[in-house]
């Protein structure tokens, strides 16, 4: 019987908790997360408001719950964009002849040299700050890492005997890619998606913090941090709660990614 992988279990639990919190927030939150309540502004944590309230009197716990939706939504779409573009590019680069492959990978390197946040800020400046802009920018910035990882996996698959046999039998490249290569790089896609998810969470928070991400009043952990700056000395909890939420989410997705990598890689599994 296989030993339980602690990273996988911890990561899975944390991510599961965030997903449950986001799902619950669709049907229940302690208060309306965007309801301004001047009478209760800057309230300390209490039984009424477990995490207290912000300068608008909004319940911080409710905002954290609804903010998890933004976090997951951004992660899913950004990773989706990156995977949909990056995976085919990686497989194509592995299967193509020398020059086309070189062009794909050098273009990939060019994009890799571009700082992701800078790209996202540029998108925000051109198309306006929004969750959608942030998601697409983060997704595009994650394409190179997907393409590179998938290419290396696909190259290994292309050298296997069953692929060589398929090619010798005259099978066309596209059916080979779909039938043989793609299924064999699925584990790589899963691991990369998990790691990219953590990166997307952090990037969205950074963009919202800088004013290029999710606009108000939609709750976002990054913007909660940004709005808490005025109160770092008088009400530091306003920074601590969303900060800890971001840290836990990033930790969870990274642990999950590490755990999945260990799970899918027999060599690493044996070493443990």
């Amino acid at each position: 019987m296989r030993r339980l992988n602690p990273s996988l279990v911890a990561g899975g639990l944390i991510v599961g908790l965030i997903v449950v919190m986001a799902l619950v927030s669709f049907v229940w939150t302690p208060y309306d997360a965007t309801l301004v309540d001047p009478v209760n502004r800057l309230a300390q944590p209490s039984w009424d408001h477990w995490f207290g309230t912000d300068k608008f009197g909004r319940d911080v716990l409710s905002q954290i719950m609804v903010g998890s939706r933004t976090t997951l939504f951004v992660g899913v779409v950004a990773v989706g964009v990156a995977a949909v573009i990056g995976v085919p590019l990686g497989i194509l680069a592995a299967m193509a002849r020398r020059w086309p492959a070189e062009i794909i990978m050098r273009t990939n390197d060019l994009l890799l040299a571009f700082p992701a946040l800078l790209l996202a800020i540029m998108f925000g400046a051109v198309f306006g700050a929004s969750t959608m802009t942030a998601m697409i920018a983060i997704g595009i910035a994650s394409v190179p890492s997907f393409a590179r990882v998938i290419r290396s996996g696909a190259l290994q698959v292309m050298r296997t005997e069953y692929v060589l046999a398929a090619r010798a039998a005259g099978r066309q490249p596209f059916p080979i890619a779909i039938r043989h290569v793609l299924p064999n790089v699925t584990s790589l896609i899963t691991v990369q998606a998990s790691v990219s998810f953590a990166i997307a969470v952090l990037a969205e928070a950074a963009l919202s913090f800088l004013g290029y991400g999710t606009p108000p009043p939609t709750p976002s952990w990054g913007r909660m941090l940004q709005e808490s700056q005025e109160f770092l000395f008088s009400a530091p909890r306003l920074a601590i709660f969303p900060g800890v939420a971001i840290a836990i989410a990033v930790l969870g997705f990274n642990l999950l990614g590490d755990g999945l990598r260990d799970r899918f890689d027999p060599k690493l599994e044996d070493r443990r």
Partner: protein
Amino acid sequence: MKSSLIRGTLPTRTVALVASAALLALTACSAGSSTSPGSSPGGDQSLSVGLVAEPASLDFTTTDGAAIPQALLGNVYESLVKQDESGKIVPSLAKSWTVSPDRKTYTFDLVDNAKFSNDKPFTAADAVFSINRVKSAWTVSLKSAMDVVQEAKALSPTQLQVTLTKPSNGWLFRMTTRIGAMFSETGVSALATTPVGTGPFTFAKWNRGDSIVFERNENYWGTKPFFNQITLKYFKDPTALNNALLTGTINVIGTVQAPEALSQFTGNDKYQVIEGTTNGEVLLSFNNALPIFSDIRTRQGIRQAIDHRALLDTCFAGRGKLIGSMVPPTDPWSEDLTNVAPYDLAKAKSLLQASGAAGKTLRLRLPTLPYAISCGQVVKSQLEQAGLKVVIDQQEFPAQWLTTVFKNADYDLSIIAHVEPRDLGAVFNAKYYTRYDDPTLQQYLAAADAGDEAAQIDNMKKAARRISEQAAGDWLFLLPNLIVADKNLKGLPQNAITENFDLTRLARS
């Protein structure tokens, strides 16, 4: 935030480090919007002033927005007359002036030793050129204040005569604002990037996205300013602005945008905090051309749905003053109109129901200015409690907001501070972005402009009450003049009642 954190896989050992660094890394992102002013020569003779909302252009003849006159008027450009801190009209490039008995002809005696920064002497011909150019070449809506001028004539190099089509109380006052700025005929070819004026400072350079630098005009005809170089540094993030003063990057916060954090300075011996009043009416504007706003019950319902005291406490830490119309307390016709539309949620709901607006969706297009974003969230929440649906749409300020909201009037609701002095008539008319077409209001304004002082005050009071009772917009509050500066700096204004930030009187004690 390093790009290496964004890409690639993170080994297990670094996971905890990454997670715990998230908060610190994000917090660090706010500090990077400025550079040290230490490069300016002259040691103590230089000064750095922190402001928000960098201008989109330096040409206020074709570009709207308060940031341009704030920086240039009185500092680089001068007008014939100006306002002192009490609001009184006093000489500037005109040493004195007389008004004919029929109040239609003004004769100005001009100074004879003023020079533009392009070395051309200032004469009455330049004044004629400047006045005529407002009518012929300016494109901003404020130019209409010059419509009343029939003719401007140079009687001699130092004597100017201006004839009006009718008596106007407002014209001479308007000459203290940007439309009164004096230009050189040979200095208007590149106003957007190279302003040429007679002022105590000359324009040195504009580092877009960061700062504008002025240098002392060594050929200035009047009293030369104390500082030989002043840098206006622009910040988008109010906390970064506060931090810049705390770290010595700037010497003055020209307009505090994060009043909640003011306590950092109030108890600190290194700084002085000035709190006064301004002309900045923070207006929740309605697009009165839209059918939904044609029903007065909708407009009144919106006004009565907003708890102004709670809003001021929430989005500006209770600083500022509640006003019920477009008149600051420093104007002679100011009266308390806050009781015209008091907060009454039940009444607001019934008014919105009766007008059929309840349940409708309104776009609240906000400029990306800290106070507007904060207040917008409160307004949205309060209007939704009254039965409206409000969608917030941020518009990058100044460029995007000026185009979408101000120029094209493509909005339902917006929030912005109108800082021009005595701007009731300019803001509430059919051509302005408020699209407020009210013949009765125009009658009051015309009577105020034409009458004697008592008639002016009486009719301006009627005008102010009219727009309040008709709910032409909603006045959220009056911005306070909140300045924080190094303790040894003097000459800072207690009240900001003009369009410009006066740098000429600043000095170190």
